[in-house]
């Protein structure tokens, strides 16, 4: 390969689900990469396709969902190959999802669940695996690991369960962690603990992170690079600072405006009127146009995600602050085909 090989590369991904009255185009032409040591965030509201992307990045899009276009590559090889996906899932890529109880078996002890993975993937003996499991629990901040290994998931609080899931995710020394709304089910003080844990583990172990969330506050601290997802498409990507301080896409700006901030007393939130489009219907043109205050006739044709020199991209005909954007392509943006 002439290009630098990315750890994870998602290229023009298209995923559909069957639904009453047609198919839902859950993910539409999504491309992004995650390199070694990077932490990338995907921000989107419900139905924007963020969890489907997480599943695709694990090679886990299963019927009735179907990948109908594009590629998901891990170190240059396709995760659509089931056997390869099974090999890398665990030792290379692992996942922490929203509901820790759904990630564990309720009828097996924590110890059994932790050692199972290691015996399978790391070729450890049972005893070595137990020792390692204890070390991992200690690393994720669970006191008294020896006793805890013999307990069942229900004996742990929500925050502690999520720590166990993180320990399981780390058990085979993965290169990348996919965290899909890892703190959404947790209380705010517990959320702070878990986010703190994830970022310190990332520093210590040199993990790459793909963090998927609806919460702009969560990605602000945890991610260097961001992709903003709307109606199955990435509408803007760039560094966290660029997107937070100089958003180009009106949706990104609107999302920031509608998020109440604890540190700023706003008189009124700028709500985004209307709702996201129904993805069972073909969305013609810009999917945000019906809710966009800047929309014109031009928005009836789809804007594509123009990439700037600095890796910044925005799919909009009328980007905010465009004079600073330094985008390439005709008129500073890549037109649609």
């Amino acid at each position, binding site marked *: 390969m002439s290009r630098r090989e990315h750890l994870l590369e998602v290229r023009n991904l298209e995923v559909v689900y069957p639904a009453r009255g047609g198919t839902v185009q859950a993910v539409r032409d999504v491309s992004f990469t995650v390199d070694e040591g990077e932490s990338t965030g995907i921000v989107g509201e419900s139905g924007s396709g963020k969890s489907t992307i997480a599943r695709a990045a694990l090679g886990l899009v299963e019927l009735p969902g179907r990948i109908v276009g594009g590629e998901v590559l891990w170190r240059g090889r396709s995760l659509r190959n089931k056997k390869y996906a099974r090999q890398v899932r665990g030792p290379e890529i692992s996942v922490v999802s929203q509901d820790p109880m759904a990630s564990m078996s309720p009828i097996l002890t924590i110890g059994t669940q932790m050692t199972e993975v290691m015996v399978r993937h790391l070729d450890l003996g049972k005893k070595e695996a137990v020792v390692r499991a204890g070390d991992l629990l200690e690393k994720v901040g669970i006191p008294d690991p020896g006793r805890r290994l013999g307990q069942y998931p229900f004996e742990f609080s929500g925050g502690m369960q999520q720590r166990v899931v993180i320990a399981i995710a780390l058990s085979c020394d993965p290169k990348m962690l996919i965290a899909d709304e890892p703190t959404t089910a947790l*209380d705010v*003080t517990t959320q*702070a603990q878990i986010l*703190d844990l994830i970022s310190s583990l990332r520093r210590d172990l040199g993990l790459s992170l793909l963090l998927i969330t609806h919460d*702009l506050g969560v990605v602000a*601290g945890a991610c260097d690079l961001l992709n903003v997802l709307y109606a199955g498409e990435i509408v803007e990507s760039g560094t966290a600072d660029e997107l937070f301080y100089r958003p180009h896409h009106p949706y990104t700006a*609107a999302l920031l405006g509608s998020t109440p*901030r604890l540190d700023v007393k*706003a008189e009124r939130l700028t709500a985004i*009127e209307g709702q996201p489009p129904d993805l069972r219907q073909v969305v013609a043109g810009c999917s945000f146009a019906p809710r966009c205050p800047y929309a014109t006739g031009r928005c009836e044709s789809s804007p594509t995600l123009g990439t700037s020199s600095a890796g910044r991209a925005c799919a909009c005909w009328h980007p905010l602050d465009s004079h600073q954007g330094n985008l390439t392509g005709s008129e500073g943006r890549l037109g649609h085909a």
Partner: protein
Amino acid sequence: MPSALLEVEGLTVTFNVGREGFWGQRRRRLTAVDDISFSIKRGETFGLVGESGSGKTTTGRAILGKVPIASGRVRFAGRDITGMEGKERRSIRQNMQLIPQNPYGSLNPRMKVRDLVAEPLVVHQRFPSARRATERVVELLELTGMNPDDLYKYPHAFSGGQRQRIVIARALALNPDLIIADEPVSALDVSIQAQVVNLLQDLQRRLDLTYIFIAHDLAVVRHISHRIGIMYAGKLVEVANGEDVYRTPIHPYTEALLSSVPIPDPRIERDRAAKVIPGEPPDPMQPPPGCRFHARCPLVQKRCIEEAPPLEVKKPEHQAACWLR
């Protein structure tokens, strides 16, 4: 002194949660809300914040009379409504309505919008004629930003945000004075959440409503509330104006809570000194003696472990329950 619409005094709510002992001779009791007091002025929004299990929802339900009160008093517009039942309770309930969290679970899927919104009018027998009721429903739908054409649709035809507007229209049907909104926007996406928050603020101004806004999201609560009460493990630990709670918190738990909320601003997040507080809230079956927060508190002293601090005035219009500040 401005008239208090609602006064809560020493409110305590306990639940029986099974039995213990070999013969099951002892009842196990859980104290969900433990001796809390606050009052709410007419026209204000009182935000009640706390994490799961802190007792905020139970407080709201106790005020509405949906759970029995073990001890304490609730006064509404000067009238003692503690333990009121039957006809009396029904007449009070017209002035006090609930907006529940889940807009998917709170609307009967087999009823049309018109009937859903008119239901409180039927229940409280304010039903001069079917036509008049429909007119009132149209009025309410317009008030909450819904389209009157939607009158004969079923809830499934609406998104979460629209359903929440229907729920609000229903809550307003009887012209209540007080609305208890229990996590009214937590199930909604942020762009829709902003629509509903703005709607609630507009309605308050237009209809002179008083809100108890119960939520776990401090940023939303700070945005909408005039005064805020912070709950921890069944106790009210701090009450003050929204700005004071945010700028000059007194209770160490409030401080910890504030510093745990992520701010959508990368620079602030990067520079944030790690202020993670360790531990978890105590087991509600066995609340610790003394201050409920003592096991997690960075300032803990001997007295905190032995004696529970009362909620007392520390500064003008600023109460907190802490021995050390």
